[in-house]
């Protein structure tokens, strides 16, 4: 078990820029917006950035939400601009969705749903990690 895990890890390509882990629900704090600002800046400087959604952070991807109903600027709308910033690697933790009884129905396309192990391995491919 240990050896196959190590083997798999070694086969992965080397360092791959910045990973941003989003772990907070979208409307109770500024963390999601602060993470988005970092992602867009890295994108505009043409630095590789991948987004990871885990724990309550998965709520940031769920479709049919309207922040304006709770008088919050809808920063989730900006997620649709990721392709213009070459942010293409967007990963969500399947177990976090299951735990919250959420369907895999997201407000942006190209979201990759990963098992906990795949999620960890994808994270491991990055040189730097920031968590919000």
């Amino acid at each position: 078990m240990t050896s196959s895990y190590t083997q798999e890890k070694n086969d992965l390509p080397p360092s791959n820029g910045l990973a941003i882990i989003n772990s907070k629900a979208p409307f109770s704090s500024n963390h999601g917006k602060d993470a988005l600002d970092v992602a867009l800046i890295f994108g505009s400087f043409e630095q590789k950035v991948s987004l990871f959604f885990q724990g309550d952070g998965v709520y940031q991807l769920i479709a049919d939400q309207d922040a304006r109903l709770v008088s919050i600027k809808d920063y989730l709308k900006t997620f649709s601009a990721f392709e213009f910033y070459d942010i293409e690697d967007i990963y969500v933790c399947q177990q976090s969705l299951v735990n919250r009884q959420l369907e895999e129905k997201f407000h942006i396309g190209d979201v990759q749903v990963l098992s906990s192990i795949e999620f960890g391995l994808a994270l491991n491919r990055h040189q730097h990690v920031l968590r919000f």
Partner: protein
Amino acid sequence: MKTLAVVVTTPPYSHLTISALTYVEAALVAGINVIGVFFYQDGAMHANKDISIASDEYQAIEHWQRLNKEYQLPLHICITAAEKRGIACDSIDNDQVNEAFTVSGLGELVELTTKAARLVQF
């Protein structure tokens, strides 16, 4: 040479900031090249001159100033995070920014991340 960049997101009154300071100082003492500390989110509050923490409590801001002076450690604050927290960054007459800190933007975080072998967040 080993290069390290640090991101601080906790406020000056947070106990987690003590961990950040202890870590950064240990790295400097060990001869690691700490290329900069970037203060984001509540971390930006460190640059507020007007913050006063009871004298018998840990003086995080003083310790950052000391590291800046002793090791020429660059301390960057995110201007957006600072202004959102009431720290006037652009006014000459009413400058609330502690001299040890440099007012920067998120672009500086990109710079630090690109140059550093390791990035550690507190």
